């Protein structure tokens, strides 16, 4: 296949950045999208040009590190991660535009690499159950209905890639934050800190400068793991409940 790539190039955080166009011949449709970038980069290095920097690691759709905004969609045309996108999803002669995630809370580091440490800080504000190692009850001491465990699992499959933020016109992180709040709110282990968790994580989310949610649902539609909008509804309920209750500790 022949492909024309329009890629965002930005030397560093303070550089203004611009699009650059590259023509690629001889792309196999069995290649993954990132392997196409590998080939382009090999070529650039041979020509003494700086290769295009992008984040990636596991290349099997689970680590959440890859993050390309392709033709107006985070991770491209399919509901999957960039690393699991293959060239057979494109046509010979296509022009493909590739940008980094665009969000105030994800500043560009270089080319297609962004800084998502805001997600880590949101998690640090309450995305856990406060138990120390050791001294916990036997794993089967508290039965959990299968339906609840399965739903908690669905929320827990979030890979923290940030596609939800990139997809949202307001760069809201509601889907990411609500997935964790939901998982722990549903499980018995998460009950003790349920209220403070919802409050603290939402507060940190706002502090990081993520935008507001207007329920357009773009986040869930673009999420490579199909995290459901129900989580956002649940988090709103959790948050309101926490704010409204007098035993808010």
């Amino acid at each position, binding site marked *: 296949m022949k492909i024309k790539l329009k890629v965002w190039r930005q030397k*560093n955080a303070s550089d203004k950045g611009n699009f650059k166009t590259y023509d690629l011949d001889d792309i196999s449709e*069995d290649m993954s999208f990132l392997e196409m970038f*590998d080939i382009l980069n090999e070529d650039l290095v041979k020509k003494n040009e700086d290769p295009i920097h992008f984040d990636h690691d596991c290349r099997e759709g689970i680590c959440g590190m890859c993050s390309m905004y392709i033709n107006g969609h985070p991770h491209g045309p399919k509901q999957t991660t960039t690393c699991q996108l293959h060239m057979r999803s494109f046509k010979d002669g296509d022009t493909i535009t590739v940008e980094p995630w665009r969000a105030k809370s994800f500043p560009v580091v270089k080319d297609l690499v962004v800084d998502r440490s805001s997600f880590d800080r949101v998690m640090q504000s309450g995305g856990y159950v406060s138990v120390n190692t050791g001294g916990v009850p036997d794993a089967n001491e508290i039965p959990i209905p*299968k339906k609840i465990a399965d739903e908690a699992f669905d929320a827990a499959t979030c890979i923290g890639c940030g596609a939800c933020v990139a997809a949202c016109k307001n760069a809201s992180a509601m889907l990411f934050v609500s997935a964790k709040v939901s998982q722990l709110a549903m499980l018995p282990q998460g009950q003790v800190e349920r209220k403070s968790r919802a409050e603290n994580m939402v507060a940190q989310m706002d502090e990081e400068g993520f935008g507001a949610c207007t329920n357009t649902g773009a986040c869930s539609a673009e999420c490579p793991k199909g995290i459901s909008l129900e989580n956002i509804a649940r988090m709103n309920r959790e948050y309101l409940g926490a704010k409204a209750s007098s035993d808010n500790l």
Partner: protein
Amino acid sequence: MKLDSKIPEGPLSEKWSKHKFNVKLVNPANKRKYDIIVVGTGLAGASAAASFGELGYNVNAFCFQDSPRRAHSIAAQGGINAAKNYQNDGDSVFRLFYDTIKGGDYRSREGNVHRLAEVSVNIIDQCVAQGVPFAREYGGLLDNRSFGGAQVSRTFYARGQTGQQLLLGAYSALSRQVANGKVKMHTREEMLDLVMIDGKARGIITRNLITGKIESHSAHAVVLATGGYGNVFYLSTNAMGSNVTAAWRAHKKGAFMANPCFTQIHPTCIPVSGDHQSKLTLMSESLRNDGRVWVPKTKEDAEKVRNGQLKATDIPEDARDYYLERKYPSFGNLVPRDVASRNAKEVCDEGRGVNKTGLAVYLDFADAIKRDGEDTIKAKYGNLFDMYEQITGENPYKMPMKIYPAVHYTMGGLWVDYNLMTNVPGLYAIGEANFSDHGANRLGASALMQGLADGYFVLPYTIGDYLSQEAYDKVSTDHEAFKTAEAEVKEKINKLLSINGTKTVDEFHKDLGHIMWEYCGMSRNEEGLKKAKAEIQKLKEDFWSNVKVIGSNEELNQSLEKASRVADFIELGELMIDDAQDRSESCGGHFREESQTPEGEAKRKDDEFSYVSAWQYNGPEKPETLNKEDLVFENVKLTQRSYK
């Protein structure tokens, strides 16, 4: 040098509890006076860093990714073993211990493995308390499955994403300690050297991957939780960034590297589709429960398949060779990983491979679909079938899958004693980075178990024994040892940037992978290993005179990162070959063609090789010294594996 494994005296089942009582403790009020560095934030690193923080130590944790949650433990699919015996099917700590020792082909320590089986039960409790959503039964209790040919159902799982859920659990515990100020997290920062003062590990040198700044960090102890080195083969199921650099640089500062040639090749991966291939994707081996492995009986048919004249479904039943069922009637398609892998290679070497590259065999679900219906198969393997179709563009419900073995896990690693300390005082290695528990072959669902055992339940006890005997005094990073190490690191980086040759880092890495896979992969022989050694030495020379690295140090520079890792992989590759050469027996994942039974199966030589090989670095261009730690078996009887 005499290696002391420090296995406690006494009966096997009492060793760990006695040892826990005998180790010295650090007073709770004094823990804050000690600094610990943890490198790597996978299951082992994150769980250790979190547990240290909870205990009150000051922790500096490092990862090269943008977040600790990206570590490659996240990709583990199958599950985690624990001797809970929730299924009442006869499991016990001793049985898990026995299976692990036997599965490792009797090349691991009884004491370590028994402890692993003991603490396995605590891991599950801990993870559930953190909110890890394991699979459950309708009664609300935890579900288990049988995995990797085990006779009992002891594997806990979270759909096909167990590693992800366990890592996110450990990451959450780590995040809590970051919030509490007990752990300082350094992301996108890569360890490039170990700093030794008075013969002890006292710190590390890192490179900030965004700014290129070379930094010194000092501590009272250093823990390496940096994973395995499967990427020495270029293509593997490891993440692209997984590397040996931290462990290798520690090795060059004196830490012994143990059993480096022990690598695990996983039989069910998606085959290579072309030269552009950057990594291999594992398909859970649970697929072999229902899939039948075959190739055409004749080379001619295989040839026709390869050039598109025949489709798999065109080949009649009597022209197919279900070679595993034929050769191993009792285990059939469920033979262990190493046996399945070697046989796939064998039939492909005979010219009967079935994809364009000739390196693939069929895994056929047609009979299972006929027997159980497509819906049942979909319920069991739906996500795997989807993943296969996404990557290959073929529908496995209609056409047999194609699979081929790929490098998956490295049992070898830094040598550690019972306390998980390397031979360098104050330097620890945990998880896949050490060699300790899996012998010559790891059982399915045991890697997650070992990572978390080391991090949550072993090292937090044993590190106190060392620290309690260390003075509180901190070493300043202005110390000469730090300055020297920084200078060495900078010099190496400058060297890489200044060569400006004609060959890219990836080209070197591919060449290295080719040598390793060809001669030090699924089967090895004396002649091939000699050849490989010569080729690697040539490659190394070529690398240091002809590698092309673009850009500067003072920026995000992914070519430079790769170059520095590949340089270390080349050196490690040579040591793996030395190790494979020394061990002229077959055991576990290490198959020496010279050592096989008349039927062509692996033949162990217990009289000669019941030892751990611990290699000692002697300086550049000097052969390494082999130190042997004899393995003593008091509780199990050594037997040859047979799957006929």
